[in-house]
């Protein structure tokens, strides 16, 4: 249980904290546009890696 909470809360923090920081620039361009500044690379490379692993697992294993 705790093992799942820690990465989840950490990841949530990485999206919420920029959202708080950039709220002063408006909801659309500030919050919406910049809330993924910290988590963005995690999402991009994490999802890309999982797609590659999925392709390998589906067709080659």
């Amino acid at each position: 249980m705790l093992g799942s909470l820690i990465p989840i809360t950490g990841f949530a923090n990485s999206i919420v904290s920029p959202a708080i920081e950039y709220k002063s620039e408006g909801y659309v361009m500030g919050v919406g546009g910049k809330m993924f500044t910290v988590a963005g690379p995690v999402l991009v490379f994490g999802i890309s890696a999982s797609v590659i692993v999925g392709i390998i697992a589906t067709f080659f294993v």
Partner: protein
Amino acid sequence: MNRIGKQTLCLDKKPLILQTASIVGPKEAQGPMASYFDHCLEDEFWGEKKKKKAESKIIKETVNLAISKSGISSSSIDFCFAGDLLNQCISSSFGLRDVNIPFFGVFGACSTFVESMTLGSIFVEAGAANHVICATSSHFCSAEKQFRFPLELGNQRPPTSQWTVTGAGCSILSSSGEGPRITHVTPGKIVDMGIKDANNMGAAMAPAAFDTLMAHFEDTGRKPSDYDAIVTGDLGYIGKDILEDLCKTKGYNISHNYDDCGVLMFDKLEQDTHSGGSGCACIATIFSGYFYKQLQEGKIKKMLLIATGALMNSTSSQQGESIPGIAHAIAIEA
């Protein structure tokens, strides 16, 4: 006024520092220098909802305070030199838009305070102005937002990092009146020794401070012991050690009368500020609050003030660039 040596100007009329003012945030108010500042804020946002507006309010009120302490009217001030760390120096320009004084926006990163005093003193010396305001500010929250990570993220800070001072300092230079006088200015060159670690400003800026210090001593023929105090802006604990070592390589021992405002500003053990304070306001508030009083009271008769800056922006490090440093020096006599 005439140039001596490579890059020092000797000011014959010696513009005087008529008055100063300093306002700091709550963390600085808990530090060892707290009693020297004019005003300590309980809340770093000072009632404002946005960080940049808070920084603008701090520099505006600091300038107003300096003017009211000086006894001269703002209409008799000829020019204002101001700058800060934020993009396009908006803190200064937005903060000072109502002062109604011809305005020069200046950027030297954390060297801005002495850069503005250098330019201001040249204006006064040349007869272009009778009274000049030199002001600068920084704010921990707005600097972190621009250069580093969101505050709520709670990111770990390495031991080499420094804490951006929240506050503003202002000095009014004048052609007449009573006050400590600026006798020499040594503008610095940009010095880049290839430091790429944006979390180690002290190491990036120390070579520039060394370059300017050596130029000042060689141009003026002076030595470290000629000064009661040699003070740098924000090299911090690490940069301070590096500068002392660099000076020893050229046969100059500055350890007896040298200190750094980044080291003075905070209590290292109690306040968890790692390598010390930084930001434009570090030297601006400590000079305007502490050293100015020491000069007025005659406890310091001759000092060399060197502000140090790291000329980078929020993306240059990510692009693989190193961090160029700069340092400007002014010699002041009581």
